[in-house]
């Protein structure tokens, strides 16, 4: 999407991955290859879902894009700049709640601003605005442990939004929530995404989640993770999960994924047998 073949890194793409590979513990006996030769572009404002079996390295790709880990080979750029370290432009939201329990909700949301040394008025105002956008304005002064799991993830989203990121990286953010809450959170995320104009890279192993959210679905192979196929989804939102188009897409994604899940299983069993 919009990548120029002559000078691949001059594109305006939000994220560009070129031949990205990652081997954990490279050069040791425990070395294992997580990602191999990933090529991927994410356009500004695009919602891309990374779908694959557990342990296929899709979360690893997110950490690489966030700048929290270094690639073994290949390059990652974001809006022309090479990714070398974490940046507030690329906010990462984790599966497990990652709010600081010793801070109140608004202090959590304003944490990034306090790192920059912003004055208290500005921090409060930004936190209030970000919390209002996730519908939790009245929870400002609560403590994280007083909130439900879904509310905590909304606060985590508010904390990411407070940094006005250009790219939102989400690592199975709703995996720990129950099914009903998850459906609500998906609607909520789509609203937030549309308002913010940020690109989203969303990792999941749930096909339904991919069907509900994605502009494009990137299907990963089992380890080492490679891109098996990229499936564009041109359906208007909100999507009715029971519509024939969605059903068709679900069948297609299930077919893409089935072989990989079997392979992942076989590999894990082989590993367990060896150990």
């Amino acid at each position: 999407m919009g990548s120029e073949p002559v000078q691949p890194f001059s594109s305006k793409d939000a994220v560009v991955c070129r031949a990205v590979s990652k081997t954990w513990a490279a050069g040791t006996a425990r070395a294992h290859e997580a990602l191999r030769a990933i090529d991927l572009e994410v356009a500004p404002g695009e919602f891309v879902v990374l779908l694959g079996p557990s342990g296929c390295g899709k979360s690893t790709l997110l950490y690489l894009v966030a700048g929290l880990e270094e690639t073994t080979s290949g390059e990652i750029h974001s809006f022309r700049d090479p990714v070398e370290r974490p940046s507030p432009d690329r906010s990462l939201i984790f599966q497990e709640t990652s709010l600081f329990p010793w801070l109140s909700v608004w202090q959590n949301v304003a944490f990034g601003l306090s790192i920059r040394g912003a004055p208290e008025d500005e921090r409060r105002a930004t936190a209030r605005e970000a919390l209002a956008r996730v519908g939790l304005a009245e929870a400002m002064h609560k403590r994280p442990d007083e909130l439900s799991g879904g509310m905590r993830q909304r606060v985590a989203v508010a904390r990411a939004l407070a940094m006005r990121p250009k790219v939102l990286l989400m690592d199975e953010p709703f995996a720990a929530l129950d099914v009903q809450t998850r459906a609500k959170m998906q609607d909520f995320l789509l609203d937030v995404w549309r308002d913010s104009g940020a690109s989203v890279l969303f990792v999941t192993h749930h096909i339904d989640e991919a069907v509900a959210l994605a502009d494009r679905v990137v299907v990963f192979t089992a380890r080492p993770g490679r891109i098996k196929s990229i499936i564009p989804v041109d359906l208007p939102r909100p999507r009715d999960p029971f519509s024939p188009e969605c059903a068709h897409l679900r069948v297609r994604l299930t077919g893409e994924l089935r072989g990989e899940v079997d392979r992942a299983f076989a590999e894990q069993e082989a590993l367990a047998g060896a150990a």
Partner: protein
Amino acid sequence: MSGNLAGTAGRLRRAGSSITAPRPSALPPALRQALSRLGWTVVSVGLFVGLWELAWLLGIADPRLLPPPHIFLGNIPDQARFFNTATRWQIGVDAAAGPSPYEAVGITVAATAGRVFAGLAIAAVLSVTVGVLVRYFALFEKLTLPTITLLSPVSPIAWLPVAIFIFGIGNAPAIFMVVVALFFHMVLSTVSQIDGVNRNFVNVARTMGATKRQIYARVIIPAILPQMLIVLRLNLFGAWMVVLVAESTGVGFGLGQVIMLARNTFNPSLVFFTIALIGLLGFLTDWLLRQVQRRILYWVPQTTGVLRGL
């Protein structure tokens, strides 16, 4: 003596009734819980005392060697005589000089408790600082951690001569003993707490552009604080143990010195009286630290409820 037994039984019964019949009405739950805990403490101690008194009654415990509580607690003024804090070896000070026996008990207790808290405070600040530095600067770790690990299993008793060589007698060697007994493994514990900090916390701060210093000051230190306070509470008992050893070698006055006096004059009553004092003090200081913990660490969930359900 039988009156004392009856008193114990009465206390048992009263404590029991306050637990088994919690009035559903007026008392707030927090107070009721506190009362129940106090009640059970009384029952637990009462049981121990009761068995001891029984052993004495049956002639198993010789009162000259193992005097039961009603004997060693029966004549407190008599015990208090031995807590003399007057510096009688000085010329011109006669035997009756100095504070009254009760004042002397107070001064002795305060002196020992002061040494415990001074040592604890110094050890806590020093070891958390060193532990954080170990993880912060890789070179510092390489230079210090092997030595710290090497020294941490050394018994505090072995440091006693060192304490005297360096500090002579007085408060300093006793405080030094407390510090040296706690410092090494509190450093190791700090390091392992830092290693156990939720990686997501650190990663969140990193993606927001926090520097290494900010991550340590605003994420890692608050994250390890709850465990460190628990470590401190556990070490509080260690501090009480070590301070007695240190005091027994001559610091002017202190509970350890009283124990040594009791040993040298074959006075088991005085030994048990002092032990009772120490137990009470340790219990009170632990309670105090628990209150501090609850105030500062409001976010730490109370998880004992899970085990109750088993």
